[in-house]
């Protein structure tokens, strides 16, 4: 082979093509669901929109917090492995575990439920949906009727006092579900770098998870796990209010999240 510096352009191109075919790209993330969620949250019809040149206030980089991802056969989901992890029953519907390391997961699906209105969501769930008085009506509402009793998610864009969560591209998410119907509905797996703190909201039991991402696994029936990963940089406050378990995910501090939670009607 001639010295590469002296070969013809076509020969150099051929060598580059060969090198390019083995280029060590990182794995391609699944962008489709995140993009869809962002479009659904800001549903302007593209043909009449000029949003492309507008600096949107909530520069969503959604991949996580909001991106619920199915785990593909992670060993963590094996019942034997799961039982080996110390876990704590504290808030109904939520099991918080500490693990020495988070499982390796791959992005494959977003599962926010169906976008809908508050009124429509209310007709599909078996509890009274609570909207935080401090935040007002959400920017988007999702409902997942496959969860026992139904699950509602209220999504808020960033704004003054609600910082952008880079991983979710949103400001704040509130999830509401009947915790009494599925005591182990959410399995939250926190790695060693996630701060997990037992606390209370208006005297009701609560968890505060902050710092590093944690994994959420949704258990629809005792032997059937819907595996989801929540790549949170956001902090999470989860608490129980009578039969309903609520979760706030945001970039807020514990005191700010608690302030919203304690003023929810």
């Amino acid at each position: 082979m001639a010295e590469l510096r002296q070969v013809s352009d076509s020969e150099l191109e051929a060598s580059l093509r060969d090198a390019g075919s083995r280029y060590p790209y990182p794995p391609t993330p699944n962008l489709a669901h995140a993009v869809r969620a962002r479009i659904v949250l800001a549903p302007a019809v593209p043909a009449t929109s000029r949003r492309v040149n507008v600096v949107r206030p909530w520069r969503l980089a959604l991949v996580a917090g909001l991106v619920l991802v199915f785990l593909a056969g992670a060993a963590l989901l094996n019942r034997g492995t799961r039982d080996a992890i110390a876990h704590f029953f504290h808030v109904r519907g939520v099991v918080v575990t500490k693990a020495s390391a988070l499982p390796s997961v791959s992005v494959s699906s977003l599962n926010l439920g169906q976008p809908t209105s508050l009124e429509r969501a209310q007709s599909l769930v078996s509890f009274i949906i609570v909207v935080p008085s401090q935040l007002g009506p959400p920017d988007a509402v999702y409902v997942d009727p496959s969860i026992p009793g139904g699950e509602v998610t209220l999504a808020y864009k960033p704004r003054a006092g609600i910082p952008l969560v880079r991983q979710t591209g949103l400001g704040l998410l509130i999830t509401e579900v009947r915790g009494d119907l599925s005591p182990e509905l959410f399995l939250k797996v926190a790695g060693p770098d996630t701060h997990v703190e037992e606390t209370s909201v208006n005297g009701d039991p609560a968890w505060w998870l902050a710092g590093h991402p944690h994994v959420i696994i949704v258990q629809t029936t005792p032997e059937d796990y819907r595996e989801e990963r929540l790549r949170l940089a956001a902090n999470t406050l989860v608490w129980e209010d009578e039969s309903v378990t609520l979760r706030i995910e945001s970039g807020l501090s514990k005191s700010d999240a608690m302030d919203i939670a304690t003023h929810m009607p």
Partner: protein
Amino acid sequence: MSTPSVEGRPLDDAALVERARNGDVNAYEELVQHYQELAFRVAYQVTSNAADAEDAAQEAFVNAYYALGRFRSGAPFRPWLLRIVANEARNRRTSATRRTLLAERAQAAQTSGEAAPSPEAAAEAGEIRSTLLSAMQRLGQEDRLILAYRLFFDLSEAEMAEALDCPRGTVKSRLSRALGRLRALLPADLGKPPSESVNG
């Protein structure tokens, strides 16, 4: 990598784009599914950082959706999208990223050009590939992008002109200059047979 061919999907893309323009999110999601790997890899060529590339690609898809009203009906979707992707990727090159790149390039220089590999190792195809890719990393982002469009992602000249927002006639000259600059970054003895290097 198998990159989607414009020639192989014009009707599909056109139909999906038309539906997306009318607010069909499912149609647009299908387009994103089809092009997300290409978009991410193009963004990675610019940013050399996976997180920035992911952000850029995602932002580009969202921006492209809202810009569909200005998309010319019947035009190829792929180069139009890639122009948006590359612009977003350029915007992501923060000073921190640049510092990282400089460090990576300095390291690449140490392991390729200046620290000349042994003749035996240089004769290995893997070493040649590695050195070529290291040289690519040391190129400016525009040179890297034009080479990647042509040689990694198989864009036609017409597509490159659209993606680079330049006249078609300019593509060849820019490609040639990029190749020349890449060639200048290659170590002098890369590709020589071992005996030639040892004796010569």
